């Protein structure tokens, strides 16, 4: 047991931060949303320019990681400050496959990333899920920093701060066509590859959080003691959530690295872990779609903030503080709130 009893402050938290109920939605209604959005995403490379498409591909890759991250924060109530570790393991697994095994196939990359991040998550999870609250956060952070310092110091294996290069991979056995530029390859075939993996991941996560397992996680989040009383094996469930979360993040790292072309220890730092936290809060971690929206918006926000001012970090900080103070439910939660209010007004 963590030995931590919920503090009275927590029990009397104002309603604004109380968890919104995850309503049961009919599959038809979900499809009504999901299909048009998927069609738009398919059309993107033919409508916008290459730069925008690549940005979107980055965003979709990151969205997978934040979805995984949010299984812990939003559904299990565990705030990890160490998710960069799994992302980095995914990315470095790909880089090692290229450097030491001369593999080019993206499918093998993904497989390697899943296995590697799975192994690391099992080790980290075994230690981390024993604790909750701040101790969980710090332990996740400390363990991820171990990986960072190893990647940083063992430069003859990892390339140190120079990082490792990752060339464009072969998708389903096919590389870029004769005369096809790298950019065209990334904005078309690779983009669709990322999109397909993204859609699969979203579907899997949807099934996970709406399964009895997902409901049990939410029960653990809302009241650990009661969940235990009704027979939920808390530590085992937390461990499973941690494992799924880490593997999603590892897949994301593997998809991200061919886009970036390079992996450096920077993606293992705790600032990078912080970006996942930021994305989840930005989109709204009490909603299923929040992390996806958060990842996409953050990606644009950061790109333009970096171009707009050298003080982009301060800008992000101000946005984060503003969100936490004024809009704790994030973009998606706030839109839902406005939508509900508008509907009430119309029906009146």
């Amino acid at each position, binding site marked *: 047991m963590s030995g931590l009893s919920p503090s009275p402050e927590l029990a009397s938290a104002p309603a604004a931060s109380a968890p919104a109920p995850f309503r049961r939605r009919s599959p038809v209604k979900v499809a009504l949303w999901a299909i048009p959005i998927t069609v738009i995403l398919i059309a993107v490379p033919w409508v916008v320019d290459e730069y925008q498409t690549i940005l979107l591909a980055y965003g979709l890759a990151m969205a997978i990681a934040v979805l995984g991250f949010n299984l812990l924060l939003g559904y299990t109530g565990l705030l990890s400050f160490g998710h960069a570790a799994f992302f980095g393991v995914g990315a470095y697994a790909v880089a090692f496959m290229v450097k030491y095994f001369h593999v080019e196939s993206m499918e093998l990359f993904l497989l390697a990333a899943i296995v590697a991040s799975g192994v690391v998550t099992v080790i980290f999870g075994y230690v981390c899920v024993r604790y909750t609250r701040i*101790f969980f956060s710090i332990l996740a952070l*400390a363990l991820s920093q171990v990986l960072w310092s*190893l990647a940083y110091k063992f430069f003859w294996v990892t390339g140190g701060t120079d990082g490792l290069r990752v060339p464009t991979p072969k998708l389903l056995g096919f590389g870029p066509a004769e005369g096809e530029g790298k950019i065209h390859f990334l904005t078309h075939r690779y983009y669709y590859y990322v999109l397909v993996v993204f859609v699969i991941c979203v579907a899997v996560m949807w099934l996970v959080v709406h399964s009895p397992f997902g409901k049990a996680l939410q029960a653990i989040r809302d009241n650990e003691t009661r969940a235990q009383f009704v027979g939920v094996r808390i530590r085992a469930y937390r461990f499973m959530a941690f494992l799924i979360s880490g593997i999603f993040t590892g897949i994301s790292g593997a998809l991200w690295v061919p886009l970036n072309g390079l992996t450096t220890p920077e993606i293992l730092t705790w600032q990078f872990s*912080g970006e996942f*936290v930021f994305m989840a809060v930005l989109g709204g971690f009490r909603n299923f779609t929040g992390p996806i929206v958060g990842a996409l918006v953050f990606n644009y926000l950061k790109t333009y903030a970096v171009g707009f001012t050298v*003080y982009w*970090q301060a800008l992000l900080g101000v946005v984060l*503080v503003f969100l936490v*103070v004024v809009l704790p439910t994030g973009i998606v939660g706030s839109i839902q709130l406005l939508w509900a209010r508008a509907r009430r007004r119309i029906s009146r």
Partner: protein
Amino acid sequence: MDILVVHLFNALLYASVLFLIAGGLSLIYGVMRIVNLAHGNLFAIGAFATASAVGQWFAGSTSGWLFLLLPTGAIVAALIGAVLEPTLLRPFYRRPEEYQLLVTFGLLYILEDVMRFIWGPYPVSASVLFEKAGSLHVGEFVYPRYNLFVIAVGGLAALFLWAFIYRTKFGVVLRATSQDMRRASALGINVNLVYVEAFTIGCFMAGLAGAVIVPSQSAVLGMGVDALVLSFIVVVIGGLGSLEGALVGALIVGVIREIGITVFPEIELAVLYLIAAGVLFIRPAGLFGRTA
């Protein structure tokens, strides 16, 4: 033999600075149950403030009076703390822990760039103090006097803090608030005031650490985050919220780091983090922490 003494002093030097930073972090957590992720930035601000007072405003001067400027950083950090606590942190005590971590994380981003804005991207140094202090010669043994001064500051700070918390009336109030905020409030203690004071003292300690270390190394951007991560290790080993723990943790980290730098430089940091993880694994609340 001389080498061993030098290593010992280096370990103590490192431990003194770490104690000041981690002690502040731990004090703040102990009283108001909030982990301030921007704590390292206050250490960095302390370093920058002293460095610019000594190295920029009075550049060229070599007078011994310059030592009087040393506390500048600590005072600046304390003032920032006194402003931050009531304005930014107070609304968050009643909200879940995630939100507290998030808001101080945002603060970390902001303060990092505030420093970049004020002091620019280049290192600022106050090495004149370090040079002026000279070296201590005992036979063959040579050691910078300034480092001994830093060790003394760390030791004195620990002593003052102990006396302050266990031997003064304010210390009793502080401990009472830390143990049960509601009951202390019911007994007529102005909890808000105690919170401001505790936060200010914590920030003062972080600023003092930055101020005393800056003459022997320059103030650079990013030093705050490094310090934060290391002081996490210290408080995890010693126990969040415990000052004795911060002292013991700082000594352990100081010694291990000194051994690490000479014997296993590649995995020095990894060993520190693994020790922290190991301590959490065996004693979740740290060596001196309480589970409450």
